[in-house]
């Protein structure tokens, strides 16, 4: 949603999450896995920011750090006007209503010994909302909202299909009318026909409740449909961020080009030009110096140039790119901006 007047709901600044790497007792230098390494962006009320990148690039870690399931190493997370990166458990509790997370496999977060009725009632109990009758009424309303039958309240999670379980996960996430939901690969495990049902549901709920989403997925076509803006992550860093249409029509970073050109096209006979990357994703433990992507880019540069870092900058309105000789094909032009 374009709303330039209002203030961002979420602002992330220079966020880092570094995990110490466990090593033998005798090793001296401590090493770190730089899962999230200096990330900045914001999300407006009612907006969806899509987040893509290969597995291990730090998407889930970023999501968890924002909703404080993890403590960031450094940087700031400002949510609804409050700095939350240093808050303790009790300070965070009231914020938990406003910020929710849903995962790829909701089964993992649904208590298998509780009925759906109990699972959906729990958030109201924890936040001390309403009496038993009012709470049951609210559960009924939630089931309606996510398209599950009222008879579900007596059933257990295992009695539902993957798509239905994701609906339960969504029902729980929206129960306290949150302002932001972090969706971590919510449709990745679902078949296409079910996936489209869930994506439609998420879009409907957003329209109705003006929720913001941070929508994480590795499937770019899915992200494209649901997102207003899209960020591309590579090895713990944002390498490109832009309006969704702009990003897919006019990708600038070679990595974004590679991701987009790798999507198999469901139209037979269309042959497209692929941007092919060299080698494999490097490890976030002691990543190579300078520009992380330089050694995989189809634009080959000398080791000396590769070792100098790129500059993450705005090259057009709201279009951010890591500018480096190896990451963009018009480096001269962009670096002069």
């Amino acid at each position, binding site marked *: 949603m374009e709303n330039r007047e209002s203030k961002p709901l979420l602002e992330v600044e220079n966020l880092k999450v570094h995990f110490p790497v466990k090593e033998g007792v005798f090793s001296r230098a401590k090493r770190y896995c730089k899962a999230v390494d200096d990330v900045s962006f914001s999300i407006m009320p009612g907006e969806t920011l899509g987040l893509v990148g*290969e*597995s291990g690039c730090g998407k889930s870690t970023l999501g968890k750090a924002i909703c404080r399931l993890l403590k960031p190493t450094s940087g700031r997370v400002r949510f609804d006007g409050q700095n939350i990166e240093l808050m303790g458990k009790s300070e965070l509790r009231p914020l938990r209503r406003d910020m929710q997370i849903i995962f790829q496999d909701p089964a993992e977060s649904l208590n298998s010994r509780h009925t759906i009725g109990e699972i959906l009632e729990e958030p109201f109990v924890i936040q001390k909302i309403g009496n038993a009758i009012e709470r049951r009424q609210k559960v009924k309303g939630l089931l309606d909202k996510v398209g599950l039958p009222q008879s579900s309240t007596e059933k257990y999670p295992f009695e539902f*299909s993957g*798509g239905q379980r994701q609906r339960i996960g969504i029902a729980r996430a929206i129960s306290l009318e949150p302002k932001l939901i972090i969706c971590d690969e919510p449709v990745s495990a679902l*078949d*296409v*026909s*079910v*996936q*489209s*049902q869930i*994506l*439609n549901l998420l*879009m409907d709920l957003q329209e109705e409740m003006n929720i913001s989403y941070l929508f994480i997925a*590795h*499937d*770019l*076509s*899915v992200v*494209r*449909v*649901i*997102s*207003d803006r899209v960020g591309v992550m590579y090895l713990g860093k944002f390498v490109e961020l832009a309006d*969704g*249409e702009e990003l*897919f029509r006019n990708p600038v970073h070679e990595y974004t080009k*590679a*991701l*987009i*050109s*790798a*999507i*198999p*096209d*469901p*139209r*037979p*006979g*269309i042959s497209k030009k*692929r941007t*092919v*990357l060299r080698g*494999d*994703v490097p490890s976030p433990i002691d990543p190579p110096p300078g520009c992380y992507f330089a050694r995989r880019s189809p634009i080959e540069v000398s080791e000396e140039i590769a070792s100098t870092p790129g500059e993450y900058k705005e090259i057009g309105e709201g279009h951010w790119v890591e500018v480096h000789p190896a990451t963009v094909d018009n480096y001269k032009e962009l670096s002069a901006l």
Partner: protein
Amino acid sequence: MRDSAGILSVRDLVAAFDTDSGQVTAVDGVSFDLQAGKTLGIVGESGCGKSVTAMSIMRLLPQPAGKILGGRVFYGDEDLASVSDERMHEIRGAEISMIFQEPMTALNPVQRIGKQLSESLLIHEGLSKKDAWDRSIELLQMVGIPSPEVRVSEYPHQLSGGMRQRVVIAIALACNPKIVIADEPTTALDVTVQAQILDLLKSLQDSLGMSVIMITHDLGVIAETCDDVVVMYAGRVAERGPINAIFNQPQHLYTKGLMSSIPRIDSPRKEKLNTIEGSVPSLMNMPVGARFAPRSWHPSIQEYLQSDEFATVRPDLVNIGEDHWVEDCPYVRTF
């Protein structure tokens, strides 16, 4: 005996499992032909019987629960559904081989890559140990693994996911098989790596001339790699035919529904996607009639669902164009 000249022809294949709650038929009368040198795709949502079809062809159904209850798998003059175990053992790996989704389960974690590659060369090709080892290095080179002479002595965990899948492909191709069955070979991989692996398979197929059965739930992968497609729904074939016919003139409502529910790279943003209402029936109570009927949006579908025909008659496939077949039931077809 045979009605088509494919390199592999599956006819009326029925495969079932014994479970605590009785026998369940996972594959219920599946037929298709794989043409020599071509790629046949099998597509359908999880649980529709793709892997069970593949494992039946290879005679690798989990024992003792899994059984082939009927049908034939013609390969040359032989019926793989009934040849002896010894003969099947000869065929597997040497003439027909398989690539699985998860390379880690297909590889032995405590054996050097070269040893695993050598194994079938020793068995099927009768090479000496030294020759088999040298050939292993060649194979790793062929599938694009850098420094193959180093990698050949390493263990699977020392490789990335994409490299492991290349090793699995090298093992599958070690004895120059005529047919390769790839069961979701790229589902566990990132898109960039998937693209590399699909390109690799294509170029190997062109140079070695093998025929491929590509099993996937991803219509994009099918469109990029296949010549012919089988669309499966709930253990049966809903529709099959040449790639262009299936993608451009799908006749079964299920095929149509699948095609229109995938988000495309050019779909308008924030616009509702098409969906197929309802869900797949459970294996325990599959209808006899058209299995997609309870989800069909045909205007007179209720008549059919209440009819004796739905309760008792199993629709055949009917030919509607060159090699294009669709389930013969007007209520699940385009109207």
